[in-house]
């Protein structure tokens, strides 16, 4: 299906043009999400897209699936409820770096710990864009923000390592430059039974790029091209070569752990069967 037909099929085209700033990567990531859903030939009614609050979380309003635009940081608890109510649904969570790792940081680690079957697409633009460029837990150390005019002194989370440590069973990363890889990773995340997190590195030319003199939207995309390294190449690099760069691809996959709704169904059967 052509991209134009995909937009007409899976978006609410009447809501376009979207609210995102010129050159914002969020549109590319949202496009990758629908391409992944189309690739897997999922029925629209069998997909639920839950988002929190922030630039990224506006995506649920443009998509024509079962959608909830929930409260700040609370996309994962809402998604957990949706998944437990109907485990047959394919649940996607659309969230941003601030939404998922600061306000909703606790929900993120516990959803990962439970290994509940859902796919989190984390739009990482390194900043709180909507509120005017405050630094988030994923803002790289040494970057400027409106709340860090002399540059932030805090080290950033590596969210893929955090998710892995918390128990996520599928962890991947790509960028808006690597849009085809991102589509494949989202599709793999949806197919994976368990908690999947895909970090989508996105450019925010207005609130992050401008303060950090990164150039225009195309320059930020070229930065992603030059700093994102495929995992196979990354593994052969020396620590010196790795400095300032990041790996992309499937970073962690574990199919040995039980999925939460499955364990919950077993609990129900055990409780109703009367055997202790």
């Amino acid at each position, binding site marked *: 299906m*052509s*991209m*134009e037909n995909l*937009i007409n099929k899976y*978006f609410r085209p009447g809501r*376009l*043009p*979207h609210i*995102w*700033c*010129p*050159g*914002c*990567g*969020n*549109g*590319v990531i949202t*496009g990758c999400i629908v391409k992944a859903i189309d690739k897997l030939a999922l029925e629209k009614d069998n997909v639920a897209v839950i988002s929190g609050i922030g630039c990224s979380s506006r995506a649920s309003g443009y998509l024509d699936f079962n959608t909830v635009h929930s409260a700040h940081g609370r996309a994962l608890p809402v998604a957990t409820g949706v998944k437990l109510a109907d485990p047959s649904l394919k649940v996607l969570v659309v969230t941003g770096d601030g939404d998922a790792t600061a306000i909703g940081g606790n929900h993120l680690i516990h959803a990962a710990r439970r290994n509940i079957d859902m796919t989190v697409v984390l739009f990482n633009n390194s900043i709180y864009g909507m509120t005017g460029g405050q630094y988030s837990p994923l803002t790289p150390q040494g970057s400027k923000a409106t709340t860090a005019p002399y540059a932030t002194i805090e080290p950033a989370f590596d969210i893929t390592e955090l998710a892995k440590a918390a128990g996520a069973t599928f962890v991947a990363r790509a960028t*808006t*430059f690597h*849009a*085809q890889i991102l589509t494949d990773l989202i599709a793999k995340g949806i197919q994976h039974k368990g908690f999947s997190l895909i970090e989508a590195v996105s450019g925010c*030319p207005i609130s992050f790029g401008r303060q950090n003199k990164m150039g*225009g*939207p*195309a320059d930020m*995309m*070229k930065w992603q091209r030059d700093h994102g390294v495929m995992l196979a190449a990354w593994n052969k690099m020396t620590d010196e070569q790795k400095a300032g760069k990041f790996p992309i691809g499937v970073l962690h996959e574990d199919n040995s752990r039980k999925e939460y709704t499955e364990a919950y169904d077993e609990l129900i059967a055990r409780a109703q069967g009367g055997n202790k």
Partner: protein
Amino acid sequence: MSLKIITERCKGCGICAAFCPKQVLALSEIEKIEAVHEENCIKCGQCELRCPDYAIFVEK
């Protein structure tokens, strides 16, 4: 016509023009994208892939 541009959706970010290998695209006076050398288009789809606003499509 191999390129379809939906001008109302274009915000003039210039990503498509920067990644076009044949310099087919350029921003107009009102900062909307237009195909200035459409005859050079090789339909590679870079513009469609990278457009964050779903404003340009390659018709094959």
